[in-house]
């Protein structure tokens, strides 16, 4: 933990290049920071906090998550993520995550962004009773596509956007063992999409319908956050996809955003009740545009 704190301090202390940069933006499209799957952009940003409560086919769990993202170049960023959780009277931090993301395609005309990401869930860095004692590596591909290139006859569809991710979580230990015996740690396909309708985009680029704050900052959204273990169960059956469908809304300001979502379990194996997520997120690139909000190089 001390070394992670030192690394964050060093990053914040660095002073920076002349490159200018604005958060996940391609052409006229700004992709907000989504709550359950990662957006395709890189930027200097801080999630503090994201609070959730859900039932993951077990006891009701409360989570408090924070993430700091720092751009190294205009298209390359690193991230640190901490996740505290509490369930059934047991609480503590899960393993810390380190990540790196690179945007390899931006097409402003078609509002298209593609990026790749690698997340390292560092084994044995969280509380013993909650966190795994092995690491997990998750390489992913991410995309974002705005519909601003639709023909003018479909003007009111232009504010729509899709983002998505497809990754594979690979545990470094194939099996975990405890007093109860040995357990297989399967590879897990992590995938998801979001469908968004940007009222700021409607107001600024399609038609000014006279919305005032906070509605002119609102982005109604549905996120699908899904996990599918690969391989088969010991009895030879395919493993079930689990996850949640999250309808909600994001209010996107210039310096911060607030996100609110319900968490509806995809199926019985995903949970037994509707949970929620609330996120406050800060765009450091807009708050500190001349210092820590700029890429290092």
């Amino acid at each position: 933990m001390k070394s992670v704190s030192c690394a964050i301090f060093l990053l914040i202390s660095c002073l920076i290049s002349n490159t200018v940069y604005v958060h996940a933006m391609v052409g006229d499209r700004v992709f907000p920071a989504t709550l359950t799957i990662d957006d395709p952009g890189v930027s200097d940003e801080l999630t503090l906090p994201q609070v959730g409560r859900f039932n993951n086919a077990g006891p009701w769990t409360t989570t408090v998550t924070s993430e700091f993202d720092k751009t190294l170049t205009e298209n390359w960023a690193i991230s640190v993520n901490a996740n505290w959780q509490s369930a059934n009277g047991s609480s503590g931090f899960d393993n810390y995550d380190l990540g790196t993301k690179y945007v390899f395609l931006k097409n402003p005309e078609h509002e298209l962004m593609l990026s790749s990401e690698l997340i390292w869930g560092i084994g044995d860095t969280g509380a013993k009773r909650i966190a795994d004692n092995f690491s997990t590596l998750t390489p992913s591909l991410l995309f974002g596509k705005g519909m601003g290139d639709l023909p003018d006859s479909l003007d009111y569809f232009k504010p729509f956007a899709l983002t998505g991710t497809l990754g594979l979580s690979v545990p470094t230990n194939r099996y975990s063992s405890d007093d109860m015996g040995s357990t297989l740690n399967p590879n897990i396909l992590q995938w998801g999409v979001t469908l968004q309708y940007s009222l700021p985009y409607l107001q600024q680029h399609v038609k000014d319908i006279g919305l005032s704050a906070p509605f002119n900052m609102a982005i109604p959204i549905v996120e699908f956050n899904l996990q599918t273990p690969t391989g088969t169960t010991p009895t030879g059956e395919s493993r079930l996809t689990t996850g949640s469908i999250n309808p909600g809304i994001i209010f996107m300001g210039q310096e911060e955003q607030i996100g609110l979502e319900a968490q509806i379990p995809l199926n019985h194996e995903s949970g037994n009740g509707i949970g929620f997520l609330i996120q406050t997120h800060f765009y450091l690139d807009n708050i500190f545009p001349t210092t820590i909000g700029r890429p290092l190089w």
Partner: protein
Amino acid sequence: MVRYILAVCLLILSVSPSRACGILEEASPKVGSTVSSIDYITLTFSQAIDASASNVKIINDQGKEITGTKLMSDKNTVLSLRTDHFLSSGRYKVSWNVLWTECGCPTQGKYKFTVTDKPPH
């Protein structure tokens, strides 16, 4: 529960639409509007912009740029383009790019409007 709801409402209201970098606050003609023939457009921004690094242009539906003169307000928050002639009927695209004086960040945008009437003689 009421306290949680109030807290969330306060959070939403605290989301500021503009501070460090600016935004386009108002456009005339309005985004997506239909207007009588005009010979100018005006863009009002929430923050001062660098006049030398900011620009606006109007493009007609044949892709031809309409010529005109760029104008700035005293406080460098209003960017206008007075066209050499009144615009004739058709659909036009306004494309703008500005550099905010305070933060040095660039922002760009575009929108369309429609002119229905013939220009006055």
